């Protein structure tokens, strides 16, 4: 199927301001813009939209690519008042486990506004990619965020393949999807475990962490590396899932899913756990759309968008997926969406194994958006991930990225408004954000 996952339109014929339309990507050279329409479920690619606006969602994404560091990841309106002061939290804070800072405006106890500040751990990724082979670039791409390695590599390779028009064996696409779903399960388990830890549900958190560890060990057994580094790269000695391996897998997956179901039913019975995340850090639907949110956070606020359904690549075009969705937009909704996604991923893994392609079948890449330039989107565990890759003479020339964390930090700022200090960790963990993918 060569259906392009977007509709190409011209800038003057596209009404970007219509309600329920959100910007998904703006290329750094200003030649392309990608929009989602949440009412119709369509995606639009606008050519030559003009210069990047200096305020609003695109400017937040652009900061990671610029030279100024550190930079703010969201711009809440300034707050004044008697006794209001700025409380800097970070960049080294074990509660957050990564390096990033939050400037909290408060009069003591209540968070009036929060400015997340990133760029502390920028490894200058994009600058290091020019001129590399796809395999070498892939080594760096998969280390953008270790626990999202499969998604980043899948998006990067899909964009590069679309840029050169390469036909990829279907089995390769199946392996990429398999890897992504495994990592999705791990990441959602990890988020649930961290929230439970913040809620002092020590037994539940330990059990969830144990399940997450089992998934990582499984990944290590199947792919040879706990975080799938090197497993999906072209020319790399990746472990291919032979038929022997595939027979052994379902036993583990079934057992894991049952263990998760038991664990989650215990969590649901824990009144203290539910109380602490219910009504915490709510993000209303209109704000989530307006701020450009993506991923489980967007789905928890009532927007029916998942890349695997709306802009699917093979093999997702052939798989059955129930859209995980909630409407309350609070931390509980985000957790519930993740639970639904875990169950959906188990189902997808089963479907992938059942429909494993025969040797030799190839897939067709998406059409390029310009000669030598491809665009690809995947649903990473944190949300919609866009890669825009220009290939010249078999080597990477330019890479543009918009990650889910870049899009969702403003939703964190919105959700944390008027929360109390003690709810900070729940709120932060429930968004599932990673500082490592906010900067280039």
């Amino acid at each position, binding site marked *: 199927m060569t259906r392009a996952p977007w509709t190409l339109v011209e800038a003057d014929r596209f009404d970007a301001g219509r309600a329920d339309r959100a910007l998904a990507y703006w290329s750094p050279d200003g030649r392309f813009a990608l929009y989602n329409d949440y009412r119709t479920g369509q995606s639009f690619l606008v050519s030559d939209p003009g210069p990047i*606006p200096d*305020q*609003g*969602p695109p400017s937040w994404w652009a900061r990671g690519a610029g030279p100024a560091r550190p930079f703010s990841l*969201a*711009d*809440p*309106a*300034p*707050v*004044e*008042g*008697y*006794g*209001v*002061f*700025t*409380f*800097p*939290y*970070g*960049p*080294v*804070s074990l509660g957050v486990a990564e*390096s990033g*800072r939050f400037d909290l405006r*408060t*009069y*003591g*106890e*209540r968070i*009036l*506004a929060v400015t997340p500040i990133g760029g502390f751990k920028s490894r200058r990724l994009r600058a290091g990619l020019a001129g590399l082979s796809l395999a070498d670039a892939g080594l760096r791409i998969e280390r953008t965020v270790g626990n999202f390695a499969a998604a980043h590599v899948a998006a990067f390779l899909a964009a590069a393949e679309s840029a050169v028009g390469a036909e990829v064996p279907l089995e390769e696409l199946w392996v990429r999807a398999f890897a992504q779903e495994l990592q999705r399960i791990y990441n959602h388990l990890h988020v649930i475990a961290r929230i439970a830890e913040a809620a002092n549900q020590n037994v539940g958190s330990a059990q969830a962490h144990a399940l997450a560890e089992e998934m990582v060990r499984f990944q290590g057994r199947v792919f040879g590396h706990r975080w799938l580094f090197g497993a999906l790269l072209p020319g790399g000695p990746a472990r291919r899932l032979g038929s022997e391996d595939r027979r052994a897998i379902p036993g583990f997956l079934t057992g894991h899913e049952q263990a998760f179901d038991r664990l989650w039913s215990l969590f649901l019975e824990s009144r203290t756990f539910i109380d602490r995340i219910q009504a915490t850090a709510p993000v209303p639907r209109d*704000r989530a759309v*307006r*701020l450009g949110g993506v991923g489980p956070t967007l789905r928890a606020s009532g927007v029916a968008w998942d890349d695997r359904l709306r802009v699917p690549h093979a093999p997702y075009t052939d798989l059955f997926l129930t859209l995980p969705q909630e409407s309350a937009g609070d931390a509980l909704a985000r957790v519930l969406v993740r639970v639904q996604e875990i169950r959906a991923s188990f189902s997808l893994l089963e479907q992938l194994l059942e429909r494993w392609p025969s040797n030799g079948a190839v897939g067709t890449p998406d059409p390029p958006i310009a000669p030598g330039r491809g665009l690809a989107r995947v649903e990473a565990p944190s949300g919609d991930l866009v890669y825009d890759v220009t290939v010249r003479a078999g080597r990477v020339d330019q890479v543009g990225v918009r990650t889910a964390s870049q899009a969702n930090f*403003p939703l964190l*700022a*919105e959700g944390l*408004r008027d929360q109390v200090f003690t709810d900070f960790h729940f709120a932060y963990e429930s968004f599932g954000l990673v500082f490592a993918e906010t900067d280039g």
Partner: protein
Amino acid sequence: MSVDLAGALLTAAIAGLFAGAPLAVVRRSAGYATTLVASLLLLVVAADALRVGSVTGVAWTGPLGDPESLSLDGLSAFFALAASVVWAGTSAYSLAYDTRSSPLLPICYAVTLGAIALLVAATNWFLFLVGWETMTLASYGMILQARGRPGRVFSASFVFLAFGEASTLFVIVAVAGLRVGTGSFVQLPYLATGAVATLVFVAALIGFGLKMGVAPFHMSEWLPIAHSSAPSNASAVLSATLTLAGAYGLFRVLSLLAAPPLWWGALVLGIGAVSVLLGALFAAVSEHTKGLPAYSTIENNGLILVALGSALLAQAEGLTALYAFALFAAFYQAIAHAVAKTALFLSAGYVEHSTGTFDLGAIEGGFKRTDGAAYAGSVAATLSLAAAPPLAGFVSEWMILEALFQSYRFRPEWVQFVGLLAGAAVALAAGLILVAMTKYLGFSLLWSPASRGPQGRSALLGGVLGALGAVILGLGVAAPWVLEMLAPTVSAFARAPIAVPVGQLLSVPNGWSILSGAPFGILSPPVVPIALSIGAAVGAGYWLLGRAGRRRVPVWMAGSAPARTDETYTSFGFSSGIRIMMRSVLQTREVRASTPSGTTAEFAGAVPYSVDLEVLDVFKVFYDGLVSGGARFSTALKTAIMPGRPGRYLAYILIVTLVVVIYTAAVG
């Protein structure tokens, strides 16, 4: 000192205080110097009066035929002593710092002092009333403002005057009751029980309570101080000595009445407990360098009433040991508070002098490193109010709590319950006042490199504050001997000899320990600093020995640079937890101005909006309603009766003429 000399000095002291007024007209510093000398004189006389039992000054016959005199017995000597310590401090402070206030201030200051001395030394209720009203008017003059502050219904000084006159009204009722009961204006005991005694008690409690600033009248204390620009010497006098005058009046009235029924003590205890809690709570959330100590005054006067209430309950139940102990606690608390509050207001005045603001949030350390004595005195005062050992406030808090712990001795259960609740309130308030004083100490007193220096003679201020700090420490450490000195006071109040609750514990020498019951609890105040010193010496030794391996590093700010001044916790933020936790009592509200459609700027120029967290004194709502209701009623009445139409007035004249004609005709 021979009786005549002492009496003459007493008269001279009181006259000298009044004399400060005309001298202040000539030259401000002359007035203050006169009051300084006069109050030191009064101090000496009062101490002597405590030693010998009484001092009588000039005597004459009053306009109503009653004998009047100025004299100090055990009870009034104590209050005169406490007041004169305060006045000496404030007069010395005024000499150094009061160079800019209006000329009215020193005149009214001297008159206030004289009036209070007069009412304390008066043995005739009429003279007492003269002194009382003069005190009210003169202190009104001290804090007089030309017009009300914008946004307020009435100016702070007017509120003060209104409450002050209400207080006088009730005191007059009480005096009238006593006049009816005893047949004369002389301060004689009235031992009958019945409606008159109850009327006297209730009127005195309300009248003197208004002056002490206890709940539900606490607005009379905090509003004039926090919302006027009353200079520090005025604030110290208002807070420390006006309330002391109120306490004196209440004690005097109670000393003249017979053994009280249980409900008197319970009422006093209840009012005191509520004041303690309210005062501490509002102090903890106050951001005003004068408002916070004003609320603390409310709390401390509440403590005096709590002790007094326990004493009255014990008296009604016949528990003589507890009665004595609680009385000693009440008087000790009174003097501990007077000295500490004076020092606190003087240091607040100094901080305001050097930083120009009353706002705790705007101050970054008020003292310079060289102001050693002033700083030490201020810290001692703050810690004493926070009941930290080995200071006076610690001993008084201990004594009051010990008295409340013994509520189980009361036989009726409802009395035990009242004592229990009062104890819980006092304990909770102790925690809250600790927050308040920590905030005050941390944000206004602590030295920081940004402090500007004093402007004026800081040596004098250092001397005053250092002396007051030494007094606070001395009162605390030498508490058993202070109690011995207070024996005449307590005996004068009880009109019977009272044993001092001082005794022996183990190997501590006799007379070094305070006993709170027979047996119940014991505290040895002189031993506390010894124990603290041993601990401090161990710590100091450890510190000295470890100096070699020690490194200095900046405070860990999660990897960020050391905090800039706008990134540290403000004093407001420090107590916001209490504002939010106690939001139902404090009626905490968030006020937002110019809120945009959402907090995140709509991708356009970000408009700053403001959020303010405000608290409210619910009693003020009541008074505001009372006042505006009264104003509306009187306007309505006026409009109804005097509409300004000549026809109506003519009708009035006609009716009255008719009535008079008919009446005269009927009678004649």
